[in-house]
């Protein structure tokens, strides 16, 4: 299609021309706009340039596909969609006749881009973030993902028992080293039931662990709420006392020092102390640096750890209880005891408050039901991942309105992993029939599998899933699960311009991806990729 090639070529040339302008800091969203801005647009600096994609069959996913429609993109956003859209003068035009346009595909369950994560060391036990493992320098892998039409992925690093890592949403914008690359650094918290172990008792233990963590987090939250209340009271008392003291001071007259008593003094003090804080003075006191002064280390010193008693510095644990005795001398003021900060529990508190969804990988029906029950008990925003046996409990899942993110339909029929052995390729169809929200992912267990997301969706169709539902499952429904449905997932006015042009059926992996646009910018072009 020479026409397409030519216009794309133009885009590229201009892109090079205006690379400098981009560097000068045009906001990220309008990058492509800047790039394709022609001379006309330069002449009228007020109007940002427009990219028009003309003639494609547009899967808007808000309604039936539009034949031969035009999509206008400006400042990284879709500004118009329709068959009767006027293309403004000076727009860059992408001729897409005979092609199909969909929103950028979203893999809601991916193990891509985490470079060196060998599967066996996947799975974190602490408050790990997948965002820390996402390697934006994997240029080849990013290219392959784009070749598969993927523009956004939810990356996680495995689903351990207990509360695991925080998944990240990555959007494959141009210049991956930039900060826009991590679209949502902390998108979800992962967990699993019955994945790491098949033993019935251990599996019960997993559930128990989750539940007790949730209860602990609830208590933690309450203790902080109590503390905050007590603190408020305490502050009031301090204020009262302050007023009283001030009143007394005034009564006593101006004999004492005129400044405000509490405020300035401590401020002065540090300046006096500062010089002592210089490394030199301090080094003298440190045992480690003292070889010059006392080169002979006594036997005593060798036997016990070198720690000099420091009456001034209380050990961290004690502070929470100590104030009681200390403050008693203060008289009426009881400083409330500050609870220990616990980053891990704070994370779970976020779950309880509904600020973050909980993803539970579970495959067996009873594990899934347990997860649902747990979510109900603690009012969590639950997302089910895996769910191989979902076909057996499709109704229960649909009733609870829990979104289900299904993995590859192509797992082995021999149990490669015990949890998957009752896996059925028709699960997606059955869940969809029952009315559940179905999202298709590629599973973090298959490294680099994201680029074949389309194949996964196609196989779901071949096993009975509705075509439309399959496309929705990798675009709009996936966006909804990631909480990004206000920006991504459909082609409509006001949304981010993440678009993919296919030469053929988007669900047929044989149909090549011709152009990928992310944030209004062309990030992949088939003839340029050459591969």
């Amino acid at each position: 299609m020479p026409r397409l090639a030519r216009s794309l070529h133009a885009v590229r040339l201009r892109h090079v021309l205006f690379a400098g302008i981009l560097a000068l800091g045009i906001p990220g969203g309008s990058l492509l706009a800047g790039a394709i801005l022609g001379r006309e647009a330069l002449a009228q600096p007020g109007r940002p340039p427009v990219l028009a994609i003309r003639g494609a069959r547009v899967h808007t996913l808000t309604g039936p596909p539009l034949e031969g429609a035009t999509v206008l993109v400006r400042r990284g956003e879709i500004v118009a969609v329709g068959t009767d859209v006027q293309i403004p003068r000076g727009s860059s035009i992408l001729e897409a006749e005979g092609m199909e346009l969909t929103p950028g595909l979203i893999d809601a369950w991916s193990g891509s881009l985490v470079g060196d994560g060998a599967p066996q060391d996947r799975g974190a036990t602490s408050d790990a973030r997948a965002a820390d493992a996402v390697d934006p320098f994997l240029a080849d892998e990013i290219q392959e993902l784009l070749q598969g039409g993927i523009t956004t992925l939810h990356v996680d690093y495995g689903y351990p028992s207990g509360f695991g890592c925080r998944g990240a949403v990555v959007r494959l914008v141009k210049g991956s080293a930039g900060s826009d690359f991590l679209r949502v650094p902390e998108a979800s918290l992962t967990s699993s039931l019955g994945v790491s172990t098949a033993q019935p008792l251990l599996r019960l233990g997993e559930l128990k662990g989750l539940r007790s963590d949730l209860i602990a987090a609830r208590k933690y939250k309450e203790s902080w709420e109590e503390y905050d209340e007590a603190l408020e009271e305490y502050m009031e008392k301090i204020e009262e006392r302050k007023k009283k003291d001030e009143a007394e001071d005034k009564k006593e007259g101006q004999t004492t020092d005129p400044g405000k008593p509490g405020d300035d003094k401590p401020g002065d003090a540090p300046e006096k102390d500062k010089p002592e804080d210089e490394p030199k003075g301090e080094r003298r006191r440190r045992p480690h640096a003292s070889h010059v002064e006392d080169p002979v280390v006594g036997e005593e010193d060798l036997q016990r750890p070198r720690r000099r008693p420091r009456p001034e510095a209380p050990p961290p644990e004690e502070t929470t209880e100590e104030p009681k005795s200390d403050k008693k001398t203060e008289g009426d003021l009881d400083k409330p005891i500050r609870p220990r900060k616990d980053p891990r529990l704070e994370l779970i508190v976020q779950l309880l408050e509904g600020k973050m969804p909980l993803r539970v990988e579970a495959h067996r029906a009873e594990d899934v039901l347990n997860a649902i029950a747990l979510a109900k008990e603690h009012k969590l925003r639950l997302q089910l991942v895996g769910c191989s046996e979902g076909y057996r409990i499709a109704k229960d899942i649909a009733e609870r309105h829990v979104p289900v993110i299904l993995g590859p339909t192509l797992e082995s029929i021999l149990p490669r992993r015990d949890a998957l052995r009752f896996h059925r390729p028709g699960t997606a169809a059955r869940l969809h029939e029952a009315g559940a929200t179905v999202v298709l992912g590629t599973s973090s267990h298959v490294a680099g599998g994201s680029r074949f997301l389309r194949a996964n969706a196609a196989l779901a169709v071949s096993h009975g899933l509705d075509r439309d539902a399959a496309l929705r499952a990798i675009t709009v429904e996936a966006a909804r699960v990631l909480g990004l449905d206000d920006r991504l997932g459909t082609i409509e006015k006001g949304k981010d311009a993440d678009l993919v042009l296919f030469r053929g059926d988007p669900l047929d992996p044989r149909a090549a991806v011709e152009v990928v646009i992310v944030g209004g910018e062309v990030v992949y072009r088939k003839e340029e990729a050459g591969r």
Partner: protein
Amino acid sequence: MTKLVCLAVVLASCLTFTGAAAALQGEPGKLVVKAGTIVTLGGDEIRNGAVVVENGRIVAVGTDVEIPYDATVLEFPDKVLFPGMVNCHDWGGLDRPNESIPVAPFLDVADALDPSSVDFEEDLRQGVTTVGVSQGHDCIIGGMGRAVRPLGLTPPEMTVKQETGLKISVAARRRSNRMIQMSQLRQAFHDLDEYTGQVAEKKYEDDLKKKDKKIEVGPDEAREKGKALLRADDLDDKHRNLYRLTTGAIGSFVYAEKAMDVKVAIDLARERGFFDRMTLVVGSECFKAAATLKEAGRPVILTELVHREQDPWTGEIEETFVPGVLAREGVRFALLPEGGSLGARYLWYQAARCVRNGVTRQTALESITLVPAEALGLRDRVGSIEVGKDANLVVLSGDPLDSLTWVEKVFIEGRLAYDKDKDIRLLELLEGLTRDEIEEGGEAMESPEDGASGATPEVDPETDGGKDDGGTEGDGSDGGFLSGERRHAG
């Protein structure tokens, strides 16, 4: 003659290392080193110049400098004088590079430093006069590093600079992954915040109590106010160094294995306030983040010179010469020796590799002298032959980057620390002799039928005679030398 020489050499070797150490402690006299070529690195090369050393410092460099009447003058008319090289990040001298405690800012390499380690001997032999000893990469927050000269009996005696920096790694530890690494790193700083907060609060309250005032602010504000009162000594050993790091009191060596780590490390340093004294220790892939490194403007220590990556489509290995990329981008880098059996173990060879691959000679030479000196915070003391700097001088038989060049003499702060002619170990290695054989004087008969080990070896008298000119030159016989005793040390 041969016998005599060998005997002399052996006798010298029987002295313990204290000889050298004593010399180090004694008051150094004035010294003038004249050489055919002086590669100063601070300025242009000087032909037939002289370096005047007083009290271990260089007081004059040039062609027509005044020679003090009471100075010892050493002349090397056909040799090259080069500044002592700086190996800025090494765990030589430590029995093990890493502690199993992942967060251990309270450690200090000085406590584990083995002054008699063969590593230091080898450093001298290759012309290295300053070694930045540091913990290995396999840590989260590691111990405190230290700059030493490869000469001395005890760590304090060797020390050039204490507290060169705390080791931190943003790359995954062995059998771990980046997520866990970052999470534990965050945890470490979180714990520090919590702890310093508590201490600060208490400090503030105590301060008020001392002044007989009543508390008039809430706990959060008290913490803030208390932080201003806080001094490093108020904290316990476990947290003190980390606290000092965040106040900018000490430097750090942050290990970034991959390109993605570079930004993480820089962001962390900026967020925690230790950016200004940070040095990045980078793996080979980090050339991809050259722009970020350039922008950061801090010196970079390179652990590997060549990056290899497989093309996913052809399966072929693509090689990138990392210093070449960094030099083009204008990033200042220091080189380190790499493993392997031949040249890559030597700093001068690493610099030569750079020249081979298109880096300019000046940049290559600076990457083993001035830049590593800067990374250790010693740029004003070592790394070039300039007035005011330590008199760390290396006498070379030829061009510093040529493999046929040998280090002949090494002066550290004006004292002779190494003399090739007295390097018994080198003799052993070159000629394949054992100590006993050197002692016996190298007469041997070949006896093919005699299979027993320890038999007299055959040594070609001619080749052995090659060592003849050694020893007779004998300037600075009180200087350091290398003892074969240390062969199995450590």
